[in-house]
């Protein structure tokens, strides 16, 4: 076989592989949306699941996922930004910093089930949070924190050194320079990264099985006092999220329309995750355009 022929074959294979990957994605999304969307309706999105009968919905699960995401982000964002600031601005090039870098790397490599188990030991049992939104949010924080740290660190590092020096030369303290000069400039990148991270959190299930739990109590959607036990906002109640729900009905769904519910819920989940992805991408592009247009 001549070199030319080999070249042609190899190139076709590579192009074919690229095509196959696109096809797999298209087939995956097409399948999910085709099978799922026919089952999605306003009733499906808002009503409670029926364990043994047809016609159950995913209302509470959808609410739980969104609420848990908000709780998680409220905890993660300040912690992640703080640690990111340390890594980018205060860490000196020494062994301690290398160690912290290793910590972040290991923490981000832990399987989410391990994070969930840790949550079970510490948040659920030790802190007596039981299976609850609070325990789930803390577990997801552990799961998400390393990503937020990296996002912040990289965003701050991409701020030009000259901006930092300009702030310092004006007699600003380092902290003031970071907060008022660098963070605003890093904000778009942090924002984009945070939205992507939110998509990941939204779809996570393994870390929640044993922290937020696999059940949802009866909720009274007219009672918004977070201290009432049937209030949706009560952070100390168990909460099955959409992703956990999908897993559970596949594993032990007894309703006759369980496969349809799983398909519908998957479609909803994937649409929300896609929205996060496209949202982050569009935001990134818009901000990029704004910056380059004025320069």
């Amino acid at each position, binding site marked *: 076989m001549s070199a030319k022929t080999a070249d042609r074959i190899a190139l076709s294979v590579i192009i074919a592989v690229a095509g196959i990957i696109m096809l797999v994605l298209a087939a995956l999304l097409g399948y999910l949306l085709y099978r799922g969307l026919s089952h999605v309706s306003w009733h499906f999105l808002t009503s409670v699941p029926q364990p043994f009968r047809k016609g159950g919905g995913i209302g509470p699960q959808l609410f739980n996922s969104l609420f848990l995401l908000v709780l998680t982000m409220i905890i993660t964002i300040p912690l992640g930004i703080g640690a990111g600031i340390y890594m980018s601005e205060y860490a000196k090039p020494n062994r301690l910093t290398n160690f912290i870098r290793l910590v972040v790397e290991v923490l981000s490599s832990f399987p989410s089930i391990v994070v969930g188990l840790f949550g079970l030991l510490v948040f659920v049992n030790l802190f007596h949070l039981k299976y609850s939104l609070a325990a789930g949010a803390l577990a997801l924080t552990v799961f998400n924190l390393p990503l937020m740290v990296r996002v912040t660190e990289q965003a701050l590092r991409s701020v030009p050194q000259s*901006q930092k*020096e*300009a702030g310092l*030369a*004006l*007699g*600003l303290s380092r902290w003031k320079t970071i907060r008022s000069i660098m963070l605003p400039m890093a904000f778009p990148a942090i924002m984009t990264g945070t939205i992507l991270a939110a998509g990941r959190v939204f779809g996570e299930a393994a870390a929640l099985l044993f922290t937020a739990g696999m059940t949802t109590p009866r909720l009274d959607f007219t009672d918004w006092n977070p201290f009432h036990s049937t209030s949706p906002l009560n952070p100390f109640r168990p909460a099955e999220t959409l992703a956990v729900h999908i897993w559970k009905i596949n594993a032990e769904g007894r309703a006759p329309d369980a496969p349809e519910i799983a398909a519908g819920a998957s479609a909803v989940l994937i649409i929300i995750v896609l929205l996060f992805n496209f949202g982050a991408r569009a935001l990134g592009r818009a901000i990029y355009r704004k910056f380059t247009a004025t320069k």
Partner: protein
Amino acid sequence: MSEMAMYTKDLSVYYGEKQAIKKVSMDFAAREVIALIGPSGCGKSTFLRSLNRMNDVIAGARVEGEIWINGRNINAPDTDVVRLRQNIGMVWQKPNPFHKSIYENIAFGPRYHGIRDKRKLDEIVESCLRKTALWDEVKDRLKGSALALSGGQQQRLCIARSLTVQPSILLMDEPASALDPVSTAKIEELIAELKKEYCIVIVTHNMYQAARVSDKTGFFLMGDLVEYDDTQKIFTNPSQRSTDDYISGRFG
């Protein structure tokens, strides 16, 4: 002999093991322009950056020796660096306005240093922009982004910004090298004007510029201060061979 604004004594700068500045002693008079010249990599910018402790932010950089301002050695470890920098303005090679409005660029420093009164801030903005001959060009768009200005305007805005904290010394690191000739001329005019109030230390690789704007000139070569004298003398009758070689363009 005029009043002294600052002097250094045996100032050395190390980057890791490498010594970038070798025991430089230099004095800077108030209301004078001092040019630092030399081939690239000779350490002139490094020296300038150590005068307001800006080398502190570079990992692995170490500064030894003394820098005296107002009877205090500001290179001493107990120096309040943040306060020190309020006394020294700095301007960089590439204009680096904050990504904020023109007004905010100027008002940011004073507001941080405790001026809350809106009228007082307006006054500061106007006077600083007037000093840098920018007022008439931008007075109608103070709320507009500073990034929409031309390169030369941005650089003058940065100079205006450096004046807001009322420094006595201005450090300029090749302030015109990224600009077109017209903007460069404006910056040079500005330097001549600002000299009436400030001690200006300017790093430049443009010898004509040094000759035009400065009263005294220091020639750096490989981290040494080879010669430091009146600009007039340096450019007409230098006492060192290497200065002469550099001035007449035999290297650099």
